[in-house]
């Protein structure tokens, strides 16, 4: 499918965007990775309101914007704002976040040139993210195993070939996917697991990853932002956080029956993980963890804003 944003017509862009701008300025829209428009119990999302639909196909047809890109932009905003119930307001919720994050709500739409083909923005953004996480100064670099790093670089080289118009044989991709799964299985680092599963999941031609990317990136970004909080923790809290992650990993990878139920509680063999996942521990440390989150907020907003700036640069160059 070819994309021509706003049908190449500035008047169409203005007609669609201005009502959204008014509602977003009033914080009457809730950024969401799903297209929400007049859906039961859900406030409208920015993209849902833009095209007045919750259907991906209709969204793309009306706006000329890939739904994958809209999902990604809403995901980045959602990662940086806190939404809470506000029953006394007309919309029933309130949004709180840094201006630099909230501005992006319409900034990405303003950046779109009517007629631009935005079909490669998400693949290019995916390439940027993979390149970023493989850099030696990436925050989680110390938690990425050599095997996984090697796999990541191989994916990057296949993607670069693809974006340059060359193809990679299906067998070469299969070999790489197997290598990624082996690297994930060997990875015992508490912080490395979600990086490993992210790299494993994107080991496909980059254009084919576009549709899944926002969902895959979500877990990775969550992990990355959570890691930034450790700079504001005590040693004991950092160790507890690692036990929490190991517990989550054990739950995610535990053998399940056909209905999806876990046969044996994997936390039985992980008493420290069991302790930090307990409601007692969570309640007892809640205030302190909120203070940690608040202290890390500035750095998290910087990371999110940098990612937003990358999206804007890609959109403007399309």
């Amino acid at each position, binding site marked *: 499918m070819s994309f021509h944003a706003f049908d190449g017509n500035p008047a169409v862009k203005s007609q669609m965007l201005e009502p959204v701008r008014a509602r977003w300025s009033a914080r009457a829209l809730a950024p969401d990775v*799903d297209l929400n428009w007049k859906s039961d119990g859900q406030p409208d999302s920015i993209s849902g309101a833009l095209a007045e639909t919750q259907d991906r196909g209709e969204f793309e047809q009306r706006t000329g914007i890939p739904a994958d890109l809209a999902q990604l932009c809403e995901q980045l905003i959602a990662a940086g704002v806190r939404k809470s119930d506000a029953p006394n307001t007309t919309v029933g919720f309130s949004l709180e976040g840094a201006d630099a994050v909230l501005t992006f709500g319409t900034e990405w739409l303003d950046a779109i040139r009517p007629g631009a083909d935005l079909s490669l923005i998400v693949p290019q953004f995916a390439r940027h993210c993979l390149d970023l996480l493989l850099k030696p100064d990436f925050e989680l670099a110390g938690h990425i195993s050599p095997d996984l790093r090697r796999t990541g670089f191989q994916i990057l080289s296949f993607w670069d070939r693809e974006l340059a118009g060359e193809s990679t044989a299906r067998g070469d991709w*299969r070999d790489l*996917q*197997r290598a*990624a*799964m082996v690297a994930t299985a060997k990875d015992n680092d508490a912080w490395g697991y979600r990086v490993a*599963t992210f790299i*494993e*999941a994107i*080991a*496909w*031609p980059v*254009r*084919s*990853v*576009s*549709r*899944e990317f926002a*969902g895959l990136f979500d877990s990775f970004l969550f992990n990355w932002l959570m890691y930034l909080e450790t700079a504001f923790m005590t040693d004991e809290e950092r160790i507890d956080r690692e036990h929490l992650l190991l517990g989550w990993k054990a739950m995610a990878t535990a053998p*399940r029956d*056909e*209905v*999806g139920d876990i046969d044996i509680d994997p936390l039985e063999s992980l008493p420290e993980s069991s302790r930090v996942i307990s409601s007692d521990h969570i309640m007892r440390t809640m205030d302190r963890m909120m203070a940690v989150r608040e202290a890390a907020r500035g750095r998290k907003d910087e990371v999110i804003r940098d990612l937003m700036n990358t999206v804007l640069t890609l959109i403007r160059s399309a």
Partner: protein
Amino acid sequence: MTADIMAVSDATFGVEIEQSKQPVLIDFWAPWCGPCMSLLPTIEGLASVYGDDLKVVKVNVDENPLLTEKFGVQGIPNLTLVKDGKAVTLRERSRTRLVGEIDGLLG
């Protein structure tokens, strides 16, 4: 690079699944099921991977109680692979892992 997934109903099950010459991957889903919607891009990606070697279909469990009962679906999302009349429930959820699981079953 995604593929449209054919919807199969209680009425079309015979033609689209029972009489299919290819193995069939069935995605049991419902529109209200968040995890099902999250899994949809992965299913579409899978359809592109296998092309004509695997038929990928979806079944709305709310609208097709007979099929849902026939395959013993107790929770969704549920991915079931039907090959040579035998049905196997898939356990993996990422495209990379699902391909490994499906390849193992297709032989």
